[in-house]
């Protein structure tokens, strides 16, 4: 293993791993399509869970969007280490001459692409189904989604790696990860609600600051801690 990995070297090998995961995903498309359908289904089902004359669709949309992103994201992240479970692929990855941080970063990058892909389809879909005007706030919404996705993916990837080879993995991952998603989903949903109500993004700066701080702290912490979760 290259002990003296430079930051650039870590990123380069992370990119190779991310590309490998995305290539697998692109050729099978099984997880992405499932996550997408799950996301669209929940948007549709949530619409019927409320009385539309009592709660307007625009008030419902932020909550629905973020619950949907959280769960479809978890589905993708669970799979990201699941693909390494067969044929000793995880061991092969570990003996590959790349720094351990690269494995985490690569997996996280692929997961980020996965979550952003689901978001890119779900947002227009909810605008269509709930009759929302997302046009004016699109840039700000995209910013919030990217910031939130980075936070979700950093913690989610680490926990996916930890739970992958335990029994109850698919159940344990949400139990561990969801409390960590609270400081992401709360700012993201509140900001989305503000933006959809036509209020300026400046009103949500306090929330966006939490998102930014969460991303900085947890991307760094998870990258440092990931190698410690692996067997030496």
């Amino acid at each position, binding site marked *: 293993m290259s002990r003296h990995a430079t930051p650039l070297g870590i990123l380069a090998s992370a990119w190779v791993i991310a590309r490998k995961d995305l290539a697998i995903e692109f050729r099978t498309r099984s997880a992405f399509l499932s996550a997408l359908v799950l996301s669209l289904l929940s948007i549709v089902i949530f619409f019927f869970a409320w009385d539309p004359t009592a709660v307007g669709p625009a008030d419902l949309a932020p909550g629905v969007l973020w619950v949907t992103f959280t769960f479809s994201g978890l589905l993708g992240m669970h799979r990201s280490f699941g693909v390494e479970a067969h044929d000793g692929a995880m061991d092969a990855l570990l003996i590959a001459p790349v720094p351990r941080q690269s494995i985490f970063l690569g997996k996280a990058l692929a997961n980020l692409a996965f979550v952003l892909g689901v978001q890119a389809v779900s947002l227009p879909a909810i605008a269509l189904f709930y009759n929302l005007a997302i046009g004016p706030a699109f840039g700000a919404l995209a910013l919030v989604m990217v910031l939130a996705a980075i936070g979700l993916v950093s*913690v989610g990837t680490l926990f996916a790696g930890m739970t992958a080879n335990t029994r109850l993995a698919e159940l*344990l991952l949400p*139990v561990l990860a969801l409390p960590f998603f*609270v*400081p992401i989903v709360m700012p993201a949903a509140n900001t989305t609600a503000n933006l959809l109500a036509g209020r300026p993004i400046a009103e949500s700066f306090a929330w966006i600051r939490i998102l930014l701080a969460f991303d900085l*702290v*947890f991307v760094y912490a998870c990258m440092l801690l990931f190698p410690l979760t692996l067997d030496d």
Partner: protein
Amino acid sequence: MTDSMTVSARRRRPDPVALVALAVVLIAYGRAIWFTPPEMLQGYAQKILYVHAPAAWVAFLAFGLTALAGAFWLFLKDPRLDRFAESSAEVGVIFTTAVLVTGPLWGKPIWGTWWSWDARLTLTLFLWFIYVGYLVLRGVISEREQRARYSAVLGILGALLIPFIHLSVYLFRTLHPMPIVANPNGINMPPVMIVTFFLCFFAFTCLYVAFVRARMALATERDALDAAVLGDS
């Protein structure tokens, strides 16, 4: 076999720390129930504070020490640190449960509602979720080294998460203020109550030490038994 039997025979004798803790708890709560006057406005409902606040203190202490023990384990790899983290987390969950049960009991007569999404209440609830998750994670991993590693990482991340949850729930609450009928203020307490109050803190801290000692003794025996059965280390 004979080894583990002598071990359990030796443990039959009660832990002196537990006896001290029990005595202090009896003194503190005897004083709280019979020798401390009820609060003027809240009446007898206020007495639940003598359980609620010390339990919250022990819960935070327990989880803080769990995270610390985990962090130190990553460097020292001493199995005793992991056993301590395990015991402290479990005792912490018990005390957090006590906080979450006594809170609504007090909230109903004083706030007029069982539950309110108050910032501190919400934080405690999420703390409970994090550490129940911690115990579940420990429960599904049978390999000792791996279990210690994962718990240490989760403990550290949990400690990092707490300020973020606190910030979010605080911001959420200030944006949507909730009616709070009464606000308990610890500083404006008559001396007789303050003495009882701190005695209860001391009592619960002793109780924490006694519980963790008992739980650690159990963990030590379990590890010894595992090692004897599996023949490893």
